[in-house]
């Protein structure tokens, strides 16, 4: 409904206004937003304020919390607090890169496919079918076999897995818009394909696309954390919340916080995105 009104001013970038209008009004939505800001603050600002180097052994492995080390030490005697503060950046960064890469390609292909209604459609459908015949984690394991372990392969694989659904969503949104009057008007006044796509259609599909991107990001976080946990993504001595849960499993009785704090932060991140997503989805109904 609002899309019709908005066609009068397709130039304005809708994110600012959309954010203000869509500040969650439900309690769970607000909790989600607060949690998300908190976890992102730890992940992004944490590396700047570590009390110790996250890679230096400073005491006995799995020593419990003490005055100098409020969260105790990990399986190599490194300060858990410093590693928790460092370990969020990789979680956010790699999931963000994978989502952005998938969207950069998916948005371009989807827009073109939706606007020009081309032969791409059946090819994409088949490709999606093949990828859908695979559990995402098994696909990631297979690529880990092919490329060897390491985060690069995992990020590429995560982006690849997300690509077909993104193309589908963008394509159907663009297809819907391309039939509308303002697109016809733009074509009639002589705008080229690039201009029609970038200046007319893109601003009008930005909202559903942004909502989808948020969910894809949380999905990327889950998937990459899972692979890191399996030991096939980031390799030690990297500090990463997923990896920390995995490598400190042996010390759960001696210093539970060595794995529980990282687990809690990772959980808070995905929970926050879910709560926020629910609140935003509920708001559009």
């Amino acid at each position: 409904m609002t899309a019709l009104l908005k066609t009068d001013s397709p130039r304005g970038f809708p994110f600012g206004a959309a954010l203000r209008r869509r500040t969650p009004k439900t309690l769970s939505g607000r909790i989600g937003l607060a949690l998300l800001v908190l976890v992102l603050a730890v992940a992004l600002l944490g590396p700047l304020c570590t009390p110790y180097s996250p890679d230096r052994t400073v005491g006995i492995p799995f020593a419990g919390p003490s005055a100098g080390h409020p969260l105790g030490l990990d399986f190599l005697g490194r300060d858990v607090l410093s590693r928790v503060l460092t370990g969020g950046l990789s979680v956010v960064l790699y999931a963000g890169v994978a989502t952005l890469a998938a969207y950069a390609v998916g948005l371009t292909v989807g827009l073109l496919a939706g606007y020009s209604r081309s032969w791409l459609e059946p090819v994409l459908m088949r490709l999606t079918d093949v990828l859908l015949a695979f559990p995402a984690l098994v696909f990631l394991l297979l690529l880990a076999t092919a490329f060897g372990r390491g985060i690069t392969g995992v990020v590429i694989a995560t982006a690849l897995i997300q690509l077909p659904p993104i193309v589908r969503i963008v394509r159907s949104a663009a297809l819907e818009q391309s039939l509308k009057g303002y697109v016809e008007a733009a074509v009639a006044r002589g705008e080229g394909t690039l201009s029609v796509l970038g200046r007319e259609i893109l601003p009008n599909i930005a909202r559903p696309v942004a909502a989808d991107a948020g969910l894809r990001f949380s999905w990327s976080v889950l998937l990459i954390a899972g692979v890191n946990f399996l030991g096939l993504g980031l390799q030690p001595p990297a500090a990463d919340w997923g990896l920390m849960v995995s490598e400190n499993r042996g010390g759960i009785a001696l210093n539970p916080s060595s794995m529980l704090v990282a687990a809690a932060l990772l959980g808070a991140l995905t929970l926050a995105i879910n709560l926020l997503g629910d609140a935003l989805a509920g708001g559009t109904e």
Partner: protein
Amino acid sequence: MTATTTVPTTAPAAAPFGSRHPLARVALRRIAGGVLTLLVLSVLVFLATSVLPGDAASAILGKQATPDAVAELRHTMGLDRPLVVQYGKWLGGLLHGDLGNTAAGYAAGGRSGVWDQISGKLGNSLVLAATVFVPVLLLSLLLGVLTALRAGRWLDHLVTTVTLVPAALPEFVLGTVLLAVFFTWFDLLPPVSFVAPGTSPLATPATLVLPVLTLVGVTVGPATRMIRAGMQEALLSDPVAVARLNGIAEARVIRRYALRNALAPSIQVFALIAQYLVGGLLIVEELFGYPGIGKELVDAVTVHDNLEVQSVTMLLATFYVAVTIAADLLVMAVVPKLRTGGTS
């Protein structure tokens, strides 16, 4: 959108597969499509495991192997033949139920079949999956229908909130928290699910509790929500409205009309859960050291046993595709309206 809109306007053409029963025809077409998908997949899997990482034989023998020894092992493993021949041999074996040999077997100087290596673990995983599936099925059906009937009331809010938290967590985070609670603080359950080879995990039920709790916790929330949505849609559908207008008692309306219409989406929900479990098992089996097919695959990837990886991957993909097709056909069997369709 209701299911009715998917009925095509054109009449079905003459039976292309010689069968006049519409369901059998759709079934044949879906199975053919599934086989085609798996064929494409098998090429991808084979390429990913054979072409890129270099040579399996030199990987087995290590860097100090003499060229002669590598050449001999390559010959034994059939790696000196063209890729197409290797692929054909592997695929032919798969079609006959022969999953090939493990690279680990060659490394030990003999041969060991992938099937001998995984059959026990496959059994363990099936036991785990079944003990997850049954409670999730019962719980989510019960909660989904109840919350749909009480939508917007306190029970609905309670169930939605309580099931959302574990469902939003990564499996290994939830598993870790359960581990901390039940092993570290209460010392009730073993932290590692050790199952001796040749014995059934059912003989030591304590080993199953934590993996099952983790997977049930992760799946029951989404399953309940989807069933709730299906049931709500069914409650708003025309047949239910007509039945109510006819003065049929509400309990009977729910039993005879609403529940029946909610059945089809529920079948899809359970197919999704069965498929999710393939990936979920990987993580949970690794976390608890449960000797199943997921841990076996992770181990095979870790030690670069490409021969085992490709066969196990295809096995899991086949299960995945089979579940999709079976669920679609089951839905068609339950909802007669969809039978003439077969657009997909």
